[in-house]
């Protein structure tokens, strides 16, 4: 099984005056070779977007997001109130209906009683 974390044990310090073999290897690879010089540099700065412009866009996006969130709060309140009103009226009708049914049962008992 391969270790997940890299080995962080410090390398032994090189002898004074002598160059470590690993560092010598790195120095060798960093030195531009003849082949590398012929390949054009692939790095090119992003044109047309300054940091200031990006910050402005981000700020506008944040303002728009805040506005949408605030608007949604208004929309949720408005729709909630509308449906609560209709639900409230529905409950009022249901309670009235239960009272009427009880009244009708009482009347039926009253009519059936003497007979």
């Amino acid at each position, binding site marked *: 099984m391969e270790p997940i974390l890299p080995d962080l044990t410090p390398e032994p310090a090189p002898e004074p005056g002598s160059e470590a073999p690993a560092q010598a290897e790195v120095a060798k690879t960093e030195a531009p070779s003849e082949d590398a010089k012929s390949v054009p540099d692939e790095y090119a700065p992003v044109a047309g977007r300054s940091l200031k412009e990006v910050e402005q866009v981000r700020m506008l996006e944040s303002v728009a997001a805040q506005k949408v969130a605030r*608007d949604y709060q208004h929309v949720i309140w408005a729709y909630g109130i509308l449906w609560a*009103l*209709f639900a409230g009226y529905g409950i009022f009708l249901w309670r009235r209906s239960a009272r009427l049914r009880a009244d009708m049962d009482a009347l039926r008992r009253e009519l059936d009683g003497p007979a």
Partner: protein
Amino acid sequence: MIRRFLPDGMLLASAVIFPYSVARIFLDTPIERTMGTAFKIFFFHVPMGWLTMLMAVICGVAAAIELRRRSMTASAVALAAAELGFVCGLGVLLTGPIWGNATWGKPWTGDARQMSTALLWLVIAAYLLIRHYGPSGSKRLAAGLAIFGAVDVPIIYYAVKLWKTTHPTTEVVGSLPPALWAAFWPGLGAILLCTFGLMGLRIRQLVLAEQLDEAWVRVSDREATDGTDPT
């Protein structure tokens, strides 16, 4: 048979259309350029406003018939319409300021349409108070108030034309782009069916309550003539 199940059918249809209309409003409708997402309140605020006015007119006409013919059904229609006018009016008066706060930055500007709608709602509230808590002879006074409320309806409609108001003119709904119309119709249909379904149920209840009262009176009279105690 159809008449018996019509209110239930209307409520059922409304229960089906409501989720569809909300899906259309929130998923298929583009966000309005100047008002943003708060514009979505329009899809139920405007139908509620129309229904408030319609209920006030129905209440006024039924009250006039009640005054002339002393009809029990007209009395029930007037009371049911007033109750639903009260509910729809409250909906308009609460959602309007919420929308106004989001778009105008102020919940209440006190313009002519707001004031005349608030006046209509107060008239309906007064009518309901008299009908529910007034003495036995107060039905005629209540009917007079209902007719006064119906007269307020054209004032609300033409308020935006007669006076300078923050509300848009009456032409704005007609000039909606097709995408917004397509979302407006289902919402209007759902709320219309729901209101008329509830109204039908309430009328039936009121007529039944009146018939029950008459039956109780007849039972009491019969027992009084028989010499037995009705209680």
